[in-house]
């Protein structure tokens, strides 16, 4: 197996008496897409929060690009190349779609030292933002305030922002939640397209629809009650008795 770009080892997370994650280990290699499935409350969002530095793991470690990032804050993790989208898309509502992407580009370009960069309004950034919007299929929405974008478009915008931020590892938290079938299909296409453009991009994706996971993931992890139950190819995991038991006959495919 190739070396992992992101590796979680024995990660546990408790909120008081609630054990949201217990002893979760997973690896994801460059260019790989790992799907994470599991019922509500399985710990998917907590896992993402720990990986992205929003929650501090109670125990265990997280390694990104060979660096131990356990306990780093979200801002530092983001600067190290981990980008994420949120289950409920979070965009800057009073800024236009293009400006949203520009914020991500500013974040990628410098920290704070180069004040001259801060004070120039440059055309290069504008065209970079336009190109990213085009890549996620939002070119026509560039001048629209994000407050006026639909849920699906906001998710796509978040994706463009994560890419603009220069992420090598992308965490997609329920990217198709609340989307219509057409929109969901478009998002899947955009992500597939990204993997062709950036073959090294590692993607971690959670979804309720097995359809989305089957279309995107190379491997799938089944999470239940905060623990990894099954790991394998999407087909294997879908057919695994444990998966069937947990989903209680829900129609996964």
């Amino acid at each position, binding site marked *: 197996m190739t070396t992992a770009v992101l590796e979680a080892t024995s990660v546990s997370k408790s909120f008081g008496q609630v054990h949201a994650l217990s002893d979760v280990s997973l690896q994801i290699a460059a260019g790989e897409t790992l799907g994470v499935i599991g019922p509500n409350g399985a710990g998917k969002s907590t896992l993402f929060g720990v990986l*992205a530095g*929003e929650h501090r793991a109670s125990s265990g470690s997280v390694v990104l690009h060979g660096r131990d990032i356990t306990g780093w*804050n*979200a*801002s*530092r*993790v*983001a*600067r190290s190349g981990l980008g*994420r989208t*949120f289950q409920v898309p*979070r*965009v*800057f*509502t*009073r*800024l*236009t779609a*293009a*400006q*949203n992407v*520009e*914020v*991500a580009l*500013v*974040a*990628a*370009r410098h*920290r*704070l030292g180069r004040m001259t*960069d*801060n*004070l*120039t*309004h*440059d*055309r290069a*950034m*504008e065209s970079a933002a336009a190109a990213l919007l085009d890549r996620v299929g939002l070119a026509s929405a560039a*001048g629209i*305030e994000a407050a006026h974008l639909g849920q699906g478009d906001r998710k796509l915008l978040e994706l463009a*922002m994560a890419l603009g*931020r220069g992420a090598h590892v992308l965490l997609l938290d329920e990217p198709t939640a609340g989307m219509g079938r057409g929109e969901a299909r478009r998002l899947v296409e955009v992500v597939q397209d990204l993997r062709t453009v950036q073959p090294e991009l590692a993607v971690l994706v959670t979804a309720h629809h097995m359809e989305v996971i089957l279309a995107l993931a190379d491997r799938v992890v089944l999470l239940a009650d905060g623990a990894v139950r099954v790991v394998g190819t999407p087909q294997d995991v879908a057919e695994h008795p444990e998966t069937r038991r947990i989903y209680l006959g829900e129609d996964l495919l």
Partner: protein
Amino acid sequence: MTVTRAAWLRQAVEVCLVVLLPAAIISAIATDLGIYVWTTVVIYIIFAMGTNVLVGWSGATSFGQAAYFGTGAYAVALLRERELPNEVLLVLAVLASAVVALTLGILTLRAVGLRFGIITLVFGQLIYLVVFRNDGLGSETGLYPVARSTVLGQDVSDQRTFFWVVVSVLTIVAFVLRRMYQSSFGLTLAAMRDDPLRTVALGLPIRWLRLISFVLAGAVAGLAGGLFAQQQGSASPSMLSFALSGHIILICLLGGRFRFWGAAAGAIVFTWAEYHLRSLTDATDLYLGALLLVIVIAMPDGLAKLWDLTTVALRSRSRTSDRDEVSV
């Protein structure tokens, strides 16, 4: 780069049109009393535009901005016997208030939202009380007389000349702020205002951004305060009062905090409304409060909304929106 130069030029032209042109008209037609009030208005515009960096740009509203305005005023008043030119006096006023703002800014780096607001309020009251109880600072009567110091070696004590001094300062401040507003710094502040957590998730140095904007707002407030002490001929505790901190926030809301010139419009309407009401009634604050309430409730985006409606109507047939239109 031609593009960059064009941006400079566009912003410079805009500032001149909005500031210098009306100032020239006012200077030509206003009475002596009118010029006196307009000078006060312009000083409030400077103060409000600085405060709007917090209220409108970054969203981290401070309820104690008078502390920095007053610091500037007292800095100038304390130096009143040194016969320093205004160029030096105002720089010192800016430095003094920037240092005070930096101190509180560092102490409040981790405080957000209401907690941040309350700390700035308490700190402002603390400074007010320290000055009020301090004989060396003139306690409740303040420091006077404060003369209008020279600019470029010229005497500017005449009200009409001083008006132009204040307008010149506003022009510089507005131009600098205009550049910042349209820069990536301004963009990241707006992002922080809309969703701080998202800004952190992108890896932006949110605490630095907050600190820089807080010091910037304090420094501009200090500059306005330094001018105000010279306008009034004194520095008094009312320049540090919570009432003033509240007024300046109301001015931002009234004018429209999400628009660059909103605070300026708010300062004009507020100051003139207060001036006229005072000559009509004793209960100025009551009527003023009611008036503001109506405007803020009816127009959450402030008077700037009227401007938007007008321009939208005018441009409805012309080109589609672009970045500039959105940020005006």
